[in-house]
């Protein structure tokens, strides 16, 4: 039969394919193409990681461990302390996630279980559309709309109401931690909502129906059945939002205001600061000599390690929850 000729006569090989073995003799060009492209991609990735490490070496030599505990960043005297940037990244992200996680998960619950069925598709596509608005547009919205508002109305109001006590200050310049965290929260909100919605929609219906049939109120079903069942996936959604917040660059460059040389570590909500990503952008201007370039690569490498770790754990959590729900 022609079939036998086509497959070089050994049909048992294909049966074994699903079990993990793949035929090589019969389909060599295909396998070669797959392997070559895979190898190419893998080598690009290795070059990428290697380049970050290699280029950061002069920076590590100049900064040493001071990079992790130092608070002064001045390329003119080759002093590279990145602690304010690392703390800035963490603080902005934590504040943004504290705001965005409840709103995002609550919104996703509302989309899946509360609002009328007819609106559901429209609202969830709207959320997905909002998730793709580029960060530069969030940035100019923050800079051109929220910044004047923050500077002239919100900050003076907060300061007068609280008497300038911590966590607020007596005066601010508009830019700073508060504005940055708000923008960041708004940015990751659609991401958290969209992923949470997918997770919640995947909760088996018999759980919901079982709870309802036993007389639980609808609110109880959501709070005590749906959310616990979807918890790992919801955590994954929040962690993915966190990863996005950690790496956010352009929008924050516009609204954080930069670390002040005297008080680089933000101590109140009105303080200006830098994150790892924005400090790369803001220090790009003074690339003098290999040490300061190397120091920028130290920042990039630190950022990559932090975000990579967070992302990797998020993926694992989501995959595990998907397995559990099946």
């Amino acid at each position: 039969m022609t079939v036998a000729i086509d497959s070089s006569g050994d049909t048992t090989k294909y049966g074994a394919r699903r079990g993990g073995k793949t035929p090589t003799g019969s389909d060599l060009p295909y396998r070669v193409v797959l392997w070559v492209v895979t190898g190419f991609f893998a080598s690009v990735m290795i070059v990428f990681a290697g380049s970050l490490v290699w280029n950061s070496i002069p920076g590590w030599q100049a900064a040493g461990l001071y990079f992790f505990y130092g608070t002064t960043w001045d390329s003119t005297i080759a002093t590279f302390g990145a602690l304010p940037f690392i703390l800035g990244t963490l603080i902005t992200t934590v504040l943004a996630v504290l705001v965005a996680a409840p709103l995002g998960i609550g919104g996703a619950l509302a989309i899946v279980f509360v609002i009328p069925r007819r609106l559901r598709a429209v609202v969830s596509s709207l959320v997905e559309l909002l998730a793709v608005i580029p960060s530069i547009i969030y940035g100019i919205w923050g800079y051109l709309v929220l910044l004047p508002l923050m500077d002239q109305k919100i900050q003076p109001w907060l300061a007068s109401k609280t008497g300038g006590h911590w966590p607020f200050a007596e005066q601010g310049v508009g830019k700073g931690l508060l504005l940055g965290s708000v923008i960041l929260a708004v940015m990751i909100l659609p991401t958290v909502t969209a992923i949470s919605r997918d997770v919640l929609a995947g909760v088996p219906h018999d759980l919901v129906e079982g709870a309802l049939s036993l007389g639980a109120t609808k609110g109880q079903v959501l709070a005590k059945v749906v959310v616990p069942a979807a918890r790992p996936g919801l955590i994954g959604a929040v962690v993915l939002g966190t990863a996005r917040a950690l790496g956010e660059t352009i929008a924050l460059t516009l609204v954080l205001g930069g670390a002040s040389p005297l008080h680089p570590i933000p101590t109140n909500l009105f303080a200006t600061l830098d994150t790892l990503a924005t400090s790369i952008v803001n220090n790009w201007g003074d690339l003098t000599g290999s040490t300061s370039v190397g120091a920028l690569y130290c920042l990039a490498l630190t950022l990559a390690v932090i975000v990579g770790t967070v992302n990797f754990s998020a993926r694992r959590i989501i995959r595990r929850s998907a397995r559990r729900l099946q």
Partner: protein
Amino acid sequence: MSLVTDAMVEARAEHREMVRSTARRNYRRRSFYSGMFYAAVTVALGIAFIPLSAIVYNVLKRGLPYISWSFLTTPEMDPPDIFHPHQIGGISNAIVGTILIDGLALLIAVPISVILAVALFESRGRTMSILRSYVEIMVGLPSILLGVFIYAFFVVPLGFKYCAMAGVLAIAIMMVPLMTVAGEAALRDVPATLSEAALALGARPSRVMWRVVLPFALPRVMTGILLSLGRAVGETAPILFIIGSNYAVNWNPFGQVTAMPTLIYKYQQSSYDYQREACWGIALVLIVAIFTLNVISRFLAARSEKGRK
């Protein structure tokens, strides 16, 4: 498989027990809390939409006055013409720059990521699981890192050659993981019975892939490609420092270009009000482009769903 089911049964039994115990409580209090919870999540959704609709409103209201034929077809006017102050000219140089960068990046990224998706789909080895986690980590990596990488790997070694090609490489590296993840998901969505039937008829794996699996998965692969393109079009951070800038329309990949996001970034920093305000016009063009890509991909996905039924 049976383990999972056991766990599920246990979980269900636990929930049942829990639900039973709570059901004994006072009904009125329960329905009050239920209403509160519903109200809370609805309010959360409402609050979430306030800033988001504010952004869309601002972009539309302040961007629409800029939209005209000449805005789209004349290049940026800079330095400002002293006879016509407060005129920014147009943004055709930025539109062309964006098309050039993202178009070429698409040409590079699509074949690589489709083949990569096929490779991930076809294999089950340890190498591939490592590669898969690598791809997934790359998906979420801050895009500024790609700009930093291309700067060291391409721009500096070529003698500080800021050009569109550097942006193309950065965007292509950003696109590949996105498209690969989407492509692999699309391939996994193809019913196994189809490929098994083809294999049973004696077709080679390559033939099964080319003639059966890929055509079936094509709409969803396209969806993934368009979504990744939509994300790439708005990216600023990776290209900001490597593509240079150009006041004139430039189609040469090895010349400097201005792209729409970098032009917004530049105007936003301007000290002139009329340039800062023009950000909204560019933002509107950018958002319309991205939304169009998304709507097309949504349409494709919906059609493939319908075709499957």
